[in-house]
């Protein structure tokens, strides 16, 4: 219940937008004709759902109408909800295996909130009693190490860091050795933001991934791609490139509480099939929550009568 509420609160703006739009389109008649379906598609595109995902959702709605012949607002809403859920796929959560080292590697383009996510994840696992270690593998951005160290101090977590400008792979190596020596449960690695079309930076990431595989073959490594919810269709391209370079396990969608309409979540899920694992819903430490597709879809759409 708690998560549901924070989700709803975080998505209030999006919710208002979609709900209002939906109700506006259907307002006069209580049913949908072809023009109104086009309007609905545009509404989805305005929420960054993207042409492909919006098209596939609309196809499903049109098929359903053809099959059943029900064009009532209620029926359309139900199909919409169902196909959105289908796009998002089975929910998958970040898995912490007991008794072995879990390495969480945070990757993404510049400015999506990797360091903040590292800090929040750290706070989250510290609270549940895990032995956590932070690794500052963003050696490129000015003051990135300081920013992560700040989170370390706040949560009482040791931070493994080298000097600014040093080899990030070396930081990762040291962090893994330290994690092994200290019998750490969870090692969280923050990396530098990199644009996915820069081959040398993606190579650097592959090297980091290789080192993890070599130095901690038994650890469970979870690579999380951090995506800013305000991003448009470029998020799809980001996911494809990062997946290739670093075996991404799942996505973290940050800033979902703010200006974003969040539809990009559907675009990425539709185009790449990647599971969304976590959602950032605010500035507070506790505002990083497990992504729940049912709640997400529910909080986007107007309330429908329970079936």
């Amino acid at each position, binding site marked *: 219940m708690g998560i549901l509420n924070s989700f709803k609160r975080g998505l209030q703006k999006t919710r208002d937008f979609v709900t209002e739009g939906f109700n506006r389109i259907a307002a006069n008649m209580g049913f949908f004709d072809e023009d109104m379906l086009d309007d609905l598609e545009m509404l989805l595109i305005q929420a960054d759902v993207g042409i492909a995902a919006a098209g596939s959702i609309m196809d499903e709605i049109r098929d359903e109408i053809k099959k059943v012949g029900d064009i009532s607002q209620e029926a359309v809403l139900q199909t919409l909800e169902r196909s959105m859920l289908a796009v998002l796929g089975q929910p998958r959560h970040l898995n912490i295996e007991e008794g072995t080292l879990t390495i969480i590697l945070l990757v993404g383009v510049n400015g999506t909130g990797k360091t903040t996510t590292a800090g929040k994840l750290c706070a989250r696992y510290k609270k549940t009693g895990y032995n956590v270690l932070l690794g500052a593998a963003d050696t490129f951005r000015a003051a990135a190490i300081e920013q992560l160290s700040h989170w370390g101090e706040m949560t009482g977590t040791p931070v493994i860091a080298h000097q600014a400008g040093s080899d990030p792979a070396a930081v990762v190596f040291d962090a893994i050795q330290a994690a092994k020596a200290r019998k750490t449960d969870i090692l969280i690695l923050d990396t530098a933001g990199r644009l996915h079309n820069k081959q040398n930076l993606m190579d650097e990431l592959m090297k980091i991934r290789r080192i993890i595989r070599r130095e901690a073959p038994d650890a469970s490594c979870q690579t999380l791609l951090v995506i800013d919810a305000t991003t448009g269709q470029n998020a799809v391209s*980001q996911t494809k490139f990062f997946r290739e370079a670093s075996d991404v396990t799942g996505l973290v969608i940050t*800033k979902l509480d703010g200006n974003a*309409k969040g539809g990009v979540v559907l675009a990425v899920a539709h185009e790449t099939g990647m599971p969304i694992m976590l959602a950032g819903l605010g500035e507070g430490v506790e505002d990083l929550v497990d992504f729940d597709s049912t709640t997400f879809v529910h909080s986007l759409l107007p309330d429908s009568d329970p079936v």
Partner: protein
Amino acid sequence: MAIFHGLSGKLTAVVNKMRGKTRVSEQDIKEMMREIRLALLEADVNFQVVKDLIADISERSKGSEVMESLTPGQQIVKIVNEALIDILGRTTSKLAVSPSGFTVIMLYGLQGAGKTTTAAKLALLLKKRGKKPMLTSVDVHRPAAARQLEILAAQAGVPCFIQPEEPLAAEIAARAVDRARYMLCDTLIVDTAGRMTIDREMMQELKSIARVTNPTEKLLIVDAMIGQEAVNVALSFDQEVGLDGFIMTKLDGDARGGAALSIRRMTGKPIKLICVGEKLEDIEEFYPDRLASRILGMGDVLSLIEKATAALDEKKAKESLEKIRKNQFSLEDMLDQFEQVKKMGSLKDVMNKLPGMGGKIDIDQVDDRAVDRSLAIIRSMTLRERRNHNLLNASRRKRIAAGSGTTVQEVNRLVRRFEETQKMMKRFSGMSGKMGKKGMRPSGGGFPF
């Protein structure tokens, strides 16, 4: 018109379907409008702006020019391009300077848009233009934000005023103004914390910073990757604190940057500068025509040409042209060409900028290291081998492969490609009597790889 050849592949498909027809029907135009609409939406251009644009473009396309043209596809592409440039503005917009002699530039935007980095880049740019800028960070929210600006300012060689212990942004801002005046700086760049426009408290803070600093330029920093929300973000900032223009960041990525079009159209405010890389020098003036091409996926030919001219060594180019004419193109010249290509930046970057490449080559498949390997192979040859590739027998090839860390197959492939290029060059040199004088570049016949 090479520039308009092959607009994002999609339009080409429509045009291809029309090939053979002598006239364009209303239906054809409708179909093209659909493709343009999709291309614009894919590029994250705001939905409302797309609607207006399409109406505008179809109106312009109905004229006899398109209907009677033998190349209606190209005519339409031209119209689209012009319509985009009309929105983006015909000229570049300069940064305003306060008549008082003390200019304050305030930067604001959403979290992670790149404000701090842009602040430092802007400072360096102004310094290079002979100004005396000072930087200040009034970001009291993100940990180590002020420290980040301080480090970047030191790299740019620009003074920086920060007070990490002070919790009130407006206080720091006021003191920064005093300090900048005291130090006889003529420009103060104020880096603010990232904020969402729906956050009332944070918007209040921004207003109070604006009040005490009285900025000459209030610039929104926008991430090129932003989606449909860009317009609302810009409008809200404009409404709350005022907006004089914007700077688009991360244009070195593969995002189309459609938001620039949306914001320009909906707020009427100009794009002042663009950021195109991670280095502090990577800030540029904004050229509307180039961004229009990028949004449409036509490739940024002009930027490429500029880069190529900067990177190409005139003298060397002339030398190899001479050699082609005399039929003496050798592996040594090929090495030169590879090196010149490398100077233009990554191959992917170059490919991306070439018009019509979008659809034909899978950019993901382009491997920059292929050029590196080719370079290594040629460098592992002796000078004599480079000048006369006929010397390359099996044992020499084996040695070269070992020396360059490649395989004999790769060496063979390179030699084969060289021979093909040479053959092509021969044919080319046959025509050079007619064309050479017009200053055709030797690599114009296609890159030899």
